[in-house]
C-alpha cells in the first residue's frame, strides 16, 4: 500500500490551489459558484450517509445482516432500492453499514496515525536528543517494512477487527504525521519567543500548548482530511483483497469483492458500494479543499 505514504506526502507539499497570481486575467466567479455548489453537495452527501447510518443503527430498518433466502440477487426495486446480494441481503443496508465501518476505521486510523504520529513528532522535535534519534530510526524501519506484509501480519495476528485494520493503516501513517509535526516543531522551537520562554523557565507543557500546538494544529487538520480518505480507500482495498473485516461484517471493499463474481448478472451489488465509496471520498476531498482554502 504505497499509496498511503505517497498520498500523505502530497498532502503536505501540495497546497490545494495556486496562490493568486499578481494579475488576474479572468473572473473566477463561475468557478467559485461551482465550488460552493460542490461543497454544499458534499456536505449533503455526508449528511445523508449519517442519517442512513443512524437509521441502520437505531431502527430495525436497513438491517445489513437480514438474509432473505427467497430473494437473492434481486434487481433494484421498491423493496430494495439497491437490490439484494447473493445471500439475499439488502445492498443498500450493507452499503450503509459499510459506510459505518469505513468511517470507524478511518476514525481509528486518525487516532492512531495523527494523534500518535504528531505526539511523537512534537516530542522529538521539541526535545531532540537521543530520543529523537531512536524514534527516527524506528520510524525509518516502519517505513522500510513492506506495508502489505505489515497489514497481513497484523491481521493474521490479531484477527480482522475494525481495530486491527484501523490500527494497521494508522500505524503506516505514523511516520508521515511524525515527520510533518517534527519539522514544524523544530522551526517553532528555534523562534526567539520560544527561546525566551525557555530561558525564563516557562513550564514545558505550557510552551507546548501555547506555542507549538497552535502552529501544528492547522497543518494537522488539513492533513487529517487527506488521512481520512486514505484510511477509507486503504480499508476498501484491504477488504477487497480479503484482508479486511471478516464476514458477515459489511465493508465497502468486501461488498465490491463479493459482488464482483456476479458482476454480469447482478452488477448492482458491486456498483452501489463502489459508487458510494468514490463519491464519499470525493466529498471529503471537496470539504478538505474548502478548509485548506479558507485557512489561507
Amino acid at each position, binding site marked *: 500500500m504505497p499509496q498511503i505514504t505517497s498520498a500523505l506526502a502530497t498532502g503536505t507539499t501540495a497546497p490545494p490551489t495556486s496562490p493568486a497570481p499578481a494579475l488576474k486575467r479572468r473572473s473566477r466567479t463561475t468557478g467559485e459558484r461551482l465550488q460552493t455548489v460542490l461543497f454544499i453537495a458534499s456536505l449533503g452527501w455526508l449528511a445523508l450517509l449519517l442519517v442512513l447510518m443512524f437509521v441502520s443503527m437505531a431502527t430495525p430498518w436497513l438491517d445489513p445482516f437480514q438474509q432473505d433466502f427467497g430473494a437473492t440477487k434481486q434487481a433494484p426495486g421498491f423493496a430494495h432500492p439497491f437490490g439484494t446480494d447473493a*445471500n439475499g441481503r439488502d445492498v443498500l443496508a450493507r452499503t450503509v453499514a459499510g459506510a459505518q465501518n469505513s468511517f470507524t476505521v478511518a476514525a481509528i486510523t486518525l487516532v492512531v496515525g495523527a494523534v500518535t504520529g504528531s505526539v511523537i513528532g512534537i516530542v522529538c522535535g521539541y526535545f531532540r536528543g537521543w530520543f529523537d534519534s531512536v524514534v527516527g530510526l524506528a520510524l525509518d524501519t516502519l517505513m522500510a517494512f513492506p506495508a502489505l506484509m505489515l497489514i497481513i501480519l497484523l491481521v493474521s495476528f490479531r484477527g480482522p477487527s475494525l481495530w486491527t485494520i484501523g490500527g494497521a493503516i494508522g500505524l503506516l501513517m505514523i511516520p508521515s504525521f511524525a515527520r510533518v509535526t517534527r519539522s514544524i516543531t523544530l522551526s517553532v522551537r528555534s523562534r526567539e519567543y520560544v527561546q525566551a520562554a525557555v530561558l525564563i523557565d516557562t513550564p514545558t507543557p505550557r510552551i507546548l500548548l501555547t506555542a507549538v500546538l497552535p502552529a501544528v494544529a492547522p497543518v494537522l487538520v488539513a492533513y487529517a482530511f487527506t488521512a481520512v480518505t486514505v484510511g477509507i480507500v486503504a480499508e476498501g482495498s484491504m477488504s477487497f483483497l480479503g484482508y479486511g473485516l471478516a*464476514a*458477515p461484517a459489511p465493508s465497502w471493499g468486501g461488498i465490491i*469483492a*463479493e459482488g464482483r*463474481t*456476479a458482476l454480469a448478472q447482478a452488477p448492482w451489488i458491486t456498483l452501489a458500494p463502489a459508487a458510494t465509496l468514490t463519491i464519499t471520498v470525493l466529498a471529503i476531498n471537496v470539504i478538505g479543499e474548502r478548509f485548506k482554502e479558507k485557512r489561507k
Partner: protein
Amino acid sequence: MNKILKKAALGAAAASLVLALGACGTTTIAASGQIGAAGEPKDGGTITFGLDRDVATLDPAKSAITSQPTLAVANALFDPLMAYGPDGSVEPYLAKSFEAMDATQTKWLLKLHDGVKFTDGSPLNAAAVVSYMEHLAKKETACSCRGDVLKISKSEAVNETDVEFTLAAPNAAFPKGFTRQMGYIASTTAKDAFGFPIGSGPYQVKDYKSGDAITMARNENYWGKKAHADTIVFKSLPDTDSRYQSLVSGAADIIWTESASQFNQAELDGMDRSTATTGTSLGVFNSRTAPFDNPAARKAVSMAIDPGALLKVVNEGTGVVAAGPITSTSSYEATAKAPGHDTKEAARIAASLPTPLSFEYLTDGRPQSQARAVAIQQMLAEVGITMTIKATDLSQFGAALVSGNFQMVDFTTSLFGDTENAFTSMYPSDGLANFSGYKNATVDTLVAESKAEPDAAKRGLLYNQIAERGFQDVPFTFYTENLDGFILDPKRIGGVADVSSWSLVSIRPSDFWSPAS
C-alpha cells in the same frame, strides 16, 4: 453417463452394483461423453488452461499438482498407475494390472506395461516404481502421502515389470490410492531444465515461469496414444473473477472454477461446462471440548441448518444437498438416512441444554465458506443458538484443524469422492482426517472390518452401518455436494471429458484438441 439413469440402475439392484456398472462402462473410455467443439479431433495448435492457483512446483510428491484443480497438470506430465473410469470405477492406467495376491488383501501385485519410458528415455520399470516409493517414504521428501506410503511394509521389484507390495494391514482399496499423488510415478534420478523430476506423460515441460505459466510440448515418444494439441499452456489465474474474464476475453480456453455464479453465467455467455459434484461441504464439530462434547448440542446445530437453503444461497442452486458420507456419485448406495432439517426439534433440543448454546465457527477465507457461514449464522439464530464467525487464512485454518483448536469448522473436501478413504480416515478414532475427535468403539470395529472386506457389496453395507452411527452421534453435519469443474469455450477447445458422474475430476489434457488448428 447420465446421473439419473445411474441412480435408477442403482435403485434397481438391491445392494451395491459396482461391478455391473464397471462392466458396462469400460469400453468407452475415450469416446464417452465429451464436451466442447464438435467434430473429429484435430492435431496441432495450442490450448490455454486457466488454473486457480500458482503452481509452486511440478514435483508430484508435493501437493501442488495433485489437488483436483491441478490434476490436469499432473496428468499431462505423468501417468497415474490407476485411474477412474467414466463410471467412477478404478482401472489400471499406467499399470497393466493391479490385483490382490491373497484373500487377506495385504499382498498386491502391480504389473506394468512393457517399454514405458520416462521423457529422457530411461525405463519406467518395476525398479523405478520401487525407487519412487522409497523416495516418497523419506521424511525429506515431505510428501503429504507419506502416511499412506508408510503403510506399505515392503515393496519389491520381482522382475522388469512386476512389483510386489506387502501391506502392514489389510486394505481392499489399496490400488485406489494410486489414482492420485502416490500413483504419479516420477523419475528419482532425472530432472528437467527447471529442476523438477520428469515423468512419462503425454507432455513435457518446455517453459516454467513461477506464478505465471507452465508451457508444455507434446511428448512425441509417448508410450500410449499421443496428445492432440502441440502445446498446452497452464496459466496461473488465482483471482476467480479475473480467471473467468480471461476465458470470456479469449486469454484462456478452459478454466477451473468452483464459483456457482460463474456456472450460471457461463450458460449466458455461450460457454460449455464440464462439472461434477466432487467437493463436499460439511460442518465438523470438535467433540473433544465444550460445547460440542455434548452430542445434544451437536444435534441441535445439525438440525437447525437447512442444507437446501445453503444449496440455494451459497451454491445458487448448483450441486446437490449432501445426504451423508456416501455421496451422490459414489458407487455405493446410501441407505442410511440423516435426521434432517427440523427447526422445531432443533429449538427444543437447544432449549433443553444446560446453558444457552454459543460458539465460534471457523472458516477459511474463501467467499463460499464465508457466505455459508453467514447463512448458517442466521439459521442458528432462529433457534436461539449464537454463532460467531472466525475467518482465517488457509495456513491458520489447517493448523487449527490439525491441532483441534476450534469449536466447529466449515470444511470443504474432496475426501468423500473416495468413499473407502472417507470412511477409513474420517470415522475411526485414529483416522487421519478425524478432526472431530470422534470416538466410537463400534465404528472403529466396523471400519477395520470394511478394510478387510474384499466384497464391494458387503463393504457397502458396512459403510451404511457406520454412516448410521455417525448420524446418531453427529460428529459432522453435511451441507452440500458442490459443483466444481471446468468452463470452456466450445469454439476454442474440444475433447474435454464430461466429468459429471466422476467422483474425482481428473481430466487428461492429451484429449484436448484445438478446432482452430
